[in-house]
């Protein structure tokens, strides 16, 4: 970069406030032409607000100060004439106007950019071709007729229609399935390279950031913690927070003896302006960390970090230890759940849509069985059938000692089934009744055991402590709890009945990375130490690797591959499993010890 060619994007001292409360605290960054920068952070880090400020699309009520320059010129927003910034957002379904066809979206932008009327339809086809859509019929389809990946491609094509200098992509692949995500990332990479365009990629997933971008910037509580070239950060993260984040990611490559999360949660930016914002959760904290906010300084050439302890962090803290794979012991443990030829079809507009086509499996005492599949593979349908929330079309679900209860159960059978299987659901925000206190929720679950509940407060307290929460939490309501805490309460509720099988339906998918690891560790404890069988439904192969010993891969309602987790992930036999494994972005290059 020379003085004559200003960087594609230059942000200086950007602060965002909401009614006097600071949300983003004076951050500066720049992106060179043709360069890609990832902004990584957990929820509450301010990464999306930063992107919105750059795009000039801050929600009303929020104000920003500082300067944003695109190609050296002050930038007022996407709609202003002048330097062009394209925007790609997370949800492909709400980003497109449902009353406009795919082609209309692109044509609209092209017209605004001054493309002559006669050339538009040809140009639309060419633009769709650029994002890998070769079927000319797609231009005439409406968003609801397109799949998630296809919608995201159309959205990308219309963001590119103004030929932007910079493309801002805010978690564009988070809502997509693993294999689709890999395709879209590959597409973004090639388009960025071919056009020589700059890219700012917002994500919560360090793996994706390393995979796609030249440089990575880590944000926490509205401040920049570290910015480094991607490869350098992956191999040797500088800041304790980056180290923590990296060690929190469940490895897809090998089993980790202990999953390290980062205890606590992200503080509000305005409460930590006069100290290191990460201090409360940091293992390396010294008194000086609380005295002033550390400045972002160049630790090594091109590598910046905001931590006064850099250089004093001991090497023993290198987090990830990948161990030799466990050997799933094939002893004669008895079967606790046996599912045979389970089928379910849904009736929609008169025709029957099969969701599950004859799935069979056994779950043994103390086993952890993973069910892996993308959305639409039928994994949640299996869960709902097992829980008795929906009636299967055919097939049997047999709990040892309970018998087949796939029909309509009576009260005694319901109680029996409750003691056979309990569930932890995905969404921590609606898994607890907002009107009941935590103690009431848990006491109700305790009451579903066969023995009477004698010491209510004592037992609720013991249950809370078992999942790593203070007993005093019993008095609080769900709204005052963080996502991770709610998920712990949900686990406590499930364990209260002392079920033989704990069914987990994507229990960590909605949680931040640093919290995920803690919940997974807790579930592993429940499985290993207490011998509760786990049936673990997920789309994340890293999670499967860490938690389960056997795995079942589901594709379009049928089991395509099954076996010991390590064997299936290391050497997948089925074509679909191979694609799934290949699609997972990875952090492990040189971290094995």
């Amino acid at each position, binding site marked *: 970069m020379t003085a004559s060619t200003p960087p594609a994007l230059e942000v200086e001292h950007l602060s965002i406030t909401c009614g006097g409360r600071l949300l983003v605290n004076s951050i500066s960054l720049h992106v060179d032409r043709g360069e890609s920068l990832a902004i990584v952070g957990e929820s509450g880090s301010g990464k999306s607000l930063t992107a919105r400020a750059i795009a000039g699309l801050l929600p009303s009520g929020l104000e920003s100060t500082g300067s944003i320059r695109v190609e050296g010129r002050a930038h007022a927003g996407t709609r202003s004439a002048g330097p062009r910034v394209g925007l790609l957002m997370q949800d492909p379904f709400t980003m497109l106007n449902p009353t406009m066809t795919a082609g209309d979206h692109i044509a609209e932008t092209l017209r605004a950019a001054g493309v002559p009327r006669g050339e538009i339809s040809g140009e639309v086809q060419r633009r769709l071709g650029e994002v890998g859509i070769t079927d000319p019929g797609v231009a005439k389809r409406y968003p609801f007729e397109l799949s998630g990946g296809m919608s995201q491609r159309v959205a990308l094509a219309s963001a590119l229609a103004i030929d932007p200098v910079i493309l801002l992509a805010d978690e564009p692949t988070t809502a997509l399935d693993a294999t689709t995500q890999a395709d879209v990332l590959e597409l973004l990479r090639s388009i960025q390279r071919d056009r020589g365009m700059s890219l700012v990629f917002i994500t919560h997933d360090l793996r994706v950031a390393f995979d796609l971008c030249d440089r990575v910037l880590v944000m926490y509580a509205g401040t920049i913690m570290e910015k480094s070239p991607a490869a350098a950060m992956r191999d040797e993260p500088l800041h304790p927070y980056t180290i923590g984040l990296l060690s929190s990611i469940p490895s897809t490559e090998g089993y980790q003896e202990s999953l390290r999360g980062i205890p606590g949660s992200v503080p509000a930016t305005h409460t930590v302006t006069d100290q290191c914002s990460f201090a409360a959760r940091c293992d390396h904290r010294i008194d000086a960390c609380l005295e002033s906010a550390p400045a972002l300084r160049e630790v090594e050439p091109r590598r910046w970090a905001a931590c006064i302890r850099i250089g004093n962090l001991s090497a023993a803290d290198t987090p990830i230890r990948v161990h030799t794979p466990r050997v799933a012991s094939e002893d004669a443990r008895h079967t606790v759940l046996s599912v045979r030829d389970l089928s379910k079809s849904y009736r929609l507009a008169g025709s029957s849509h099969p969701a599950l086509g004859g799935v069979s499996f056994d779950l043994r005492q103390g086993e952890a069985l993973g069910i892996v599949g993308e959305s639409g593979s039928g994994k949640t349908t299996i869960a709902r059938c097992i*829980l*008795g*929330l929906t009636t299967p079309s055919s097939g049997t679900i047999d709990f040892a000692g309970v018998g087949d209860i796939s029909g309509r159960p009576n*009260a005694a059978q*319901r*109680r*029996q*089934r*409750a*003691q056979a*299987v*309990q*569930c932890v*659901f*995905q*969404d921590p925000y*609606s*898994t*607890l*009744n*907002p*009107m*009941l206190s935590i103690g009431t929720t848990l006491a*109700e*679950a305790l009451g*579903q055991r066969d023995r009477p509940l004698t010491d209510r407060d004592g037992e609720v307290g013991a249950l809370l402590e078992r999942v790593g929460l203070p007993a005093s939490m019993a008095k609080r*309501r769900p*709204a*005052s709890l963080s996502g991770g805490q709610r998920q712990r309460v*949900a686990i406590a*509720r*499930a364990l209260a*009945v002392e079920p033989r099988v704990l069914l987990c339906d994507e229990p960590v998918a909605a949680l931040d990375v640093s919290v995920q690891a803690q919940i997974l560790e807790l579930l592993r404890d429940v499985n290993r130490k207490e011998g509760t069988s786990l049936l673990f439904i997920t789309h994340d192969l890293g999670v499967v690797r860490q938690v389960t010993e056997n795995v079942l891969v589901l594709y379009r309602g049928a089991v395509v591959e099954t076996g010991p987790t390590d064997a299936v992930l290391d050497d997948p036999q089925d074509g679909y499993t191979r694609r799934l494994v290949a699609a997972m972005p990875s952090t492990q290059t040189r971290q094995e010890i």
Partner: protein
Amino acid sequence: MRWGLTFWIALGVLVTIVVIAITATWLAPYDPYAQDLVASSQGPSSAHWLGTDQLGRDILSRLMVGSRTGIIGPAIVAICATIIGTLLGLWSGSSGGLTDTVTMRSIDFVYAIPPLLVAIVLVGMLGGGYWLAVAVLIVLSAPADVRIVRAAVMAQRELPYIAAARTLGLSNTRIAFRHILPNVAPTLAANALLQFVVALIALSGLAFLGIGVSAGTPDWGLMIAENRSILDLNPWAVIAPALCITALAVSVAVLGDRIFDVATARGTAR
């Protein structure tokens, strides 16, 4: 100021009216039925603060005693309609199928006819009377509650915490009362207060038309009707009861609004 100033003013007005209704017999300066034909249709004076009506009865005393029919009838309508509506709504929503269809189509039928018109026709046909009017209003108000509760049951049935409760093996009845009902309680409370307002207006209207309370009873609606003819002699005989109806209706409506806001905020914040 979590509740806001208007809330406290509204609560003050309501409490005052309720206290007056309870103590009216002792507090009222005159017997509300006592006639004094010599002092008929007088304007406000030191003896009769709000003047007298055609039969020389004290307006203030009749106003104070009249607050009883103004509160009791609407309160009974609101309470009974809420209870009936809640039970039917929970039952209909959690059973589904034929039960739900039959209940909801009956509700639609009641909805399709204008309530005040039905009340006038029905009460008039059956010979009038305050308690008959109250009963008819209960039947006509309950459908709104059925709809609110049923919609809540439908919306919540798919939420994970209801799925979790079902997974725990809890009965449908227990889920309905313990998990769903608390979440609709704020809406129900606000709606009950709104129904109080509607019933107050309806009962006063029926009294005005002469098919509610029996003639001679101190009642705000009836007073407006009876004293229309002396509007030029003692306007307060009409204005005062009208003001009372308005004050009670507005303050109860304000309370309902604020209670709904605060109660729903309790589940989401803190």
